[in-house]
């Protein structure tokens, strides 16, 4: 096989061994598929972000003056749907997980490369349906699709939005299936379960949720579509149905879905904290078990979204109690990361800055989750800006921070180029400051009683100051997100070539060249070391300096 790279005399990598659109669209290489995902996910991130900015601008003044009420409703609906189903859920697994898991466990590819490609196509079909929905006038159900509003009372594009998420859901299922089978079947000799990087454990736990939760969402959305088409009455109280059944089924998936978003982020942060502290993870076993624990217990708590929805008093007590059980493994993780830093040798490269941010913001997000799990307080703050702030601390402060940290950490591996460190640190700082300025005021707004999804708050001008702060923060945040986009693109051409292991990090992915060759490994590696063996890794001056 005479490939382009061989002809030009360069080292052959997954990026240059073939050229042309077809070689990308029909590729079965997990690394190329990861890049395909990266493009889709970045696109949707900026679409969702654009909606978010419009929302923040509208809320700058109490009166509804920038857009119409219906437009505003569509904006927050599509912001939620795009961000949750087309960015947050696929982002880390489909990009970083796809790229890294096979390399981390010493495999040539995922177990089912063609299914991997299929899941990218499903994601794109879902994405196109979502775009079709947006361009045709959008949908205004709220991302939660609550019935009977969504089934009987709105005449926007509910069906296409539902199908978009249905299809994207199958993409998520197939990714999870691939990861589970890969982790079980494709590990290199010596790569035992107790030697797996926590990044892999995190994705394994995530995959369990994707596999067992997503199908319930799929059938629920299918039922919503059927309700709209045939007026069956399953979720419609006017026809004998129960709208709370929809909420039960929806949250059975959508609460664990939060852990689909955050667990991979936890995996990333474990890698970064160890690397830049030059230390083994504190309590490997507990960290791995906590990931699995969160994945399992996360399924037992869904009705804490429904404490004021009209569920039985006794069910509310059970779900509140169970919600606290899921907080314990989360607490272990935060303490163990902190303990990992103890007596380390810490340096402050960009990925580590994001990891600091993650641990801090996740702590705040997690602790405010305890407020919401407490029945007496939940009654007051649910469906207010307190909830909005809480889940943005988890999803944006947690997951997006981790995602950016991971992108910086592995960018040299993915692209073969270094990003500009100074700009990286500046962007990390902007994101942290912008994020807190945007969302911290919303906690206060929520306790003051500002309900979420309000287009107009002219009846309560006292909410304005905090909303202005929030909007100001959002603009800083937007700059913080645009910067990496720009310098990553810049670095692809002008960045310094990256050495195989620019961070002197542990792990198989740092033993292959940057960018990796098509088959990852020339010969099957044999693993003889524990994960994070930083005591055995010599600190060298990076070769490319």
């Amino acid at each position: 096989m005479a490939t382009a790279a061989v002809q030009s005399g360069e080292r052959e990598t997954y990026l240059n061994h073939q050229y042309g659109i077809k070689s990308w669209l029909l590729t079965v290489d997990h690394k190329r598929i990861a890049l395909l995902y990266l493009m889709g996910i970045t696109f949707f991130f900026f679409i969702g972000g654009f909606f978010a900015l419009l929302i923040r601008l509208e809320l700058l003044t109490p009166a509804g003056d920038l857009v119409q009420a219906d437009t505003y409703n569509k904006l927050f609906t599509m912001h939620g749907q795009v961000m949750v189903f087309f960015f947050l859920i696929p982002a880390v697994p489909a990009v970083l997980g796809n790229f890294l898991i096979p390399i981390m466990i010493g495999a040539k590819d995922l177990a089912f490369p063609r299914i991997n490609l299929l899941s990218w196509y499903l994601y794109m079909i879902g994405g196109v349906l979502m775009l079709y929905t947006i361009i045709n006038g959008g949908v205004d159900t709220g991302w939660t699709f609550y019935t009977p509003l969504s089934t009987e009372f709105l005449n926007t594009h509910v069906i296409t939005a539902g199908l978009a998420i249905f299809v994207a859901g199958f993409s998520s299922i197939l990714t999870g299936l691939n990861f589970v089978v890969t982790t079980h079947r494709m590990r290199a000799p010596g790569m035992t379960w107790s030697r797996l990087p926590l990044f892999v454990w995190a994705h394994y736990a995530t995959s369990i949720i994707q596999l067992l939760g997503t199908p319930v969402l799929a059938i629920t959305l299918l039922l919503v579509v059927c309700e709209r088409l045939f007026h069956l009455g399953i979720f419609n109280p006017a026809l004998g149905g129960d709208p709370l059944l929809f909420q039960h089924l929806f949250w059975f998936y959508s609460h664990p879905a939060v852990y689909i978003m955050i667990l991979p982020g936890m995996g990333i942060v474990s890698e970064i904290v160890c690397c830049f502290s030059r230390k083994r993870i504190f309590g490997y076993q507990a960290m791995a078990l906590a990931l699995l624990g969160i994945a399992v217990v996360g399924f037992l708590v869904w009705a804490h979204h429904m404490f004021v929805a009209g569920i039985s008093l006794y069910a509310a007590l059970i779900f509140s109690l169970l919600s606290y059980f899921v907080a314990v493994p989360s607490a272990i993780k935060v303490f163990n990361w902190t303990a990992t830093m103890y007596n380390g040798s810490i340096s402050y490269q960009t990925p580590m800055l994001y990891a600091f941010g993650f641990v801090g913001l996740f702590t705040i997000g997690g602790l405010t989750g305890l407020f919401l799990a407490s029945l007496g307080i939940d009654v007051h703050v649910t469906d207010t800006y307190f909830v909005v702030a809480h889940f943005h601390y988890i999803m944006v402060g947690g997951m997006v921070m981790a995602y950016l940290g991971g992108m910086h950490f592995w960018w040299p591996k993915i692209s073969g180029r270094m990003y500009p460190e100074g700009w990286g640190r500046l962007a990390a700082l902007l994101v942290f400051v912008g994020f807190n300025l945007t969302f911290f005021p919303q906690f206060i707004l929520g306790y003051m009683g500002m309900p979420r999804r309000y287009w107009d708050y002219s009846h309560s001008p006292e909410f304005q100051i905090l909303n202005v702060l929030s909007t100001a923060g959002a603009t800083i945040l937007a700059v913080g997100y645009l910067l990496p986009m720009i310098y990553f693109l810049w670095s692809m051409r002008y960045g310094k070539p990256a050495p195989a292991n620019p961070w002197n990090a542990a792990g198989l992915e740092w033993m292959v060249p940057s960018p990796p060759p098509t088959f990852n490994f020339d010969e099957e590696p044999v693993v003889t070391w524990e994960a994070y063996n930083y005591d055995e890794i010599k600190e060298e001056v990076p070769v490319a300096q």
Partner: protein
Amino acid sequence: MPNSPVATANHEAHDNPALLHHFASEQQQKDAASLGMWVFLATEIMFFGGMFCAYLVYRYWYFGDFGAGSQSLNVVLGGTNTAVLICSSLTVALAVRAAQLGKQTTVVVCLILTMLFGVVFLGIKGVEYHDKFVEHHVPGASFHFPGHIPSHPDIPINQQHAQIFFSLYFIMTGLHALHMIVGLGLFAVITYYAMRKRYGPHYCTPVEIAGLYWHFVDIIWIYLFPLLYLIDRHK
């Protein structure tokens, strides 16, 4: 994948053309495929699980109307269909056995029998759907389900609650039938390859994997039959 010199390049290194490049051994590939199907079936359980949950809630609320709806279903056709599916499960199991033993003709015969049973099942299902359509038992504007609930001859059937029963009936059996159709498609492809003697003692993973799927579809029906057809039958 016509564009992939990777796969072809590596295929040459192995004796077995079915071994894909990224697997180290045939055993590994086979184990991966089998685990993949089992994990997929776990997903399927939750997919049907959402509907079983809806079913359970409304059966608990509207037991009488569910009983009435159930009794209007044709238990003879439903029971026959159960038997037909069980027969098809047997022929699939025999097809896998024949492949393991290298009996090429038996594989093909068993697969064709399986598809035949599958088509018979769908045909009977079609007859049942047709009957329901004629009787106006299909949810929608023309839905009409007169009568009384079985345990209480003086309580008339609540039309809305009966409509929920039939909605669930059509969605659950409809999705089951859709799974059957997918299975028939799989078997059509596999039969094609079986005729070309692709499968034998060394390589019969596709037959096994498709078999697992088919058995699962059978099991779903084993539950759907009593849950939908046999509520309060004795009254």
